[in-house]
């Protein structure tokens, strides 16, 4: 029923994404070169909007590589893999993977992981609040059920693992720093979450990272703890006090609240 309109939109998309105005040129006014120049306004606008979205989501990558480089890389990615959502805040999920295989970035093997950290922070700004940890309910969990507690994280929480000191790079490229990292060594595993509206990123020690990832995989507290030779109480208290932990469940029913009962 709308075959002609579909064909026209396909031709138009080829002109603005692929820089190929030939198929649409005979359908537009003004004709000739003037028409091609007018079409180019759309081509530049599409690129600018999509690159702008990637730029907003990857501020540290932008600062690392500079504007011209970023524009070139981002526009190649955007034209090859345009957004699936009309909400441009959601555009950029695959950009880190693109950078990993982008030949000009081969000399910066850490760049893709920095992009992953940027993206995790970006997503954390948009995540839902989730259920806060119910301390009273936690207090009613019988001791025999404690080892089986399964904690969930707030929706903003994610972990980015890297073979590079990405947190040091990321911190050095915040707006109040000059870009020089405090350290040039390390394999950072970074915990990202949002706390009172602000995105936070901290490096996890290996035992902490393993614990967080085990909880995220749905393991019970006892199993996730591993060998009891590290400071679980201090770490769990940090997670709880900074709003990283959300609801929990246990296989054994929790007793009724003394207030509501």
């Amino acid at each position, binding site marked *: *029923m*709308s075959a*002609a*309109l*579909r064909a*026209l*939109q*396909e031709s*138009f*998309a080829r002109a*603005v*994404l692929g820089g190929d105005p030939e198929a649409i040129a*005979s*359908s*537009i*006014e*003004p004709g000739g070169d*003037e*028409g091609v*120049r*007018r*079409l*180019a*306004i*759309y081509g530049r*606008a*599409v690129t600018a*909007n*999509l690159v702008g*979205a990637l730029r907003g989501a990857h501020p540290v990558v932008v600062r690392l590589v500079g504007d011209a480089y970023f524009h070139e890389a981002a526009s190649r990615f955007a034209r090859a893999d*345009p*957004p*699936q*959502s*009309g*909400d*441009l*805040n*959601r*555009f950029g999920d695959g950009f880190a993977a693109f950078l990993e295989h982008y030949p000009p970035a081969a000399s910066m093997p850490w760049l893709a992981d920095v992009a992953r950290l940027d993206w995790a922070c970006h997503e*954390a*700004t*948009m*995540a*839902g*609040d989730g259920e806060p940890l119910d301390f009273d309910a936690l207090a009613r969990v019988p001791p025999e059920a404690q080892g089986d507690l399964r904690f969930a994280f707030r*929706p*903003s929480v994610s972990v980015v693992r890297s073979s590079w000191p990405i947190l040091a790079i990321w911190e050095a490229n915040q707006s109040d720093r000059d870009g020089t990292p405090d350290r040039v060594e390390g394999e950072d595993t970074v915990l990202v979450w*949002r706390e009172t*509206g602000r995105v936070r990123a901290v490096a996890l020690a290996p035992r902490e990272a393993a614990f967080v990832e085990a909880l995220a995989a749905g393991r019970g507290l006892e199993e996730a703890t591993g060998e009891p030779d590290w400071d679980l109480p201090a770490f769990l208290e940090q997670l709880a006090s900074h709003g990283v932990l959300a609801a929990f469940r246990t296989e054994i029913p929790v007793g009724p609240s003394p207030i509501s009962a």
Partner: protein
Amino acid sequence: MGAARFPLRAPDPRQAGIGLRTPHFAALAGSRPAVSFLEVHSENYFADGGPALAWLERFRADYAVSLHGVALSLGSVDGLDPVHLDRLARLVSRIEPALVSEHLCWSRLGGRNLGELLPLPYSEESLGVVCARVDEAQERLGRRILVENVSAYVRFRESTIPEGEFVAQVARRTGCGVLLDVNNAYVNAENHGTDARAFLAAIEPASVGEIHLAGPERTGDGLVDSHGARVLPDVWALYEETIARLGPVPTLVEWDTNIPPLEVLVAEADKATAVLRRAGDRARGAA
């Protein structure tokens, strides 16, 4: 239907509103200028939570809010993106906006969205597609929406209906309202050598629910709708004529690039308010 979370607020048609953008959040919260409503791009608040939504809810407590979508793609042959429509519906129930609007254009094709307001040919075929999408949106949202005429840099030989008639037909067939962008009408007339007044005259006064004003940028390839400058004198003249014909209509000044300090934007909106007040006084004088 849940209980209202916010006070019921509607834009005062005798006072203009402003487009709300991130750089103005703190200044707006601090100074609370006298504007009749705030308009935001709906998609910027599609998140599940977080600071952007928290800011908007905070402003909504004090102002009427208009949700202005940029990417629903009413002219898509593929139909509306159900996820996009669901997120818009969720935002509408969260914010309880006074107005909900979208553009007469397309951006989505084959599961991809080009992130830009792309022009449609004005034909019976397009009219059928757009009206079906507007019906679907209004049904899903359970309310009337406004549709906006866009700036275009090319026209299509396939067009058989004058733009003003096309916009008027969409409103007539679907019962939606018109968001009349006077600057876009001017930009198109300049770029295509058409008559902005003929366009404006084709729109039925009762269908107009909002007016947009903004400043374009003159380039070697014609006027580009950059929303990055003050409103042009010619556009003010068209606006005065339009208000004289329609009476006071909620009016918004948009500024999206080269964003100035909040006071400059509010001062631009105050100029529109002066036009609205004069029209209101004339109407009362004539009565």
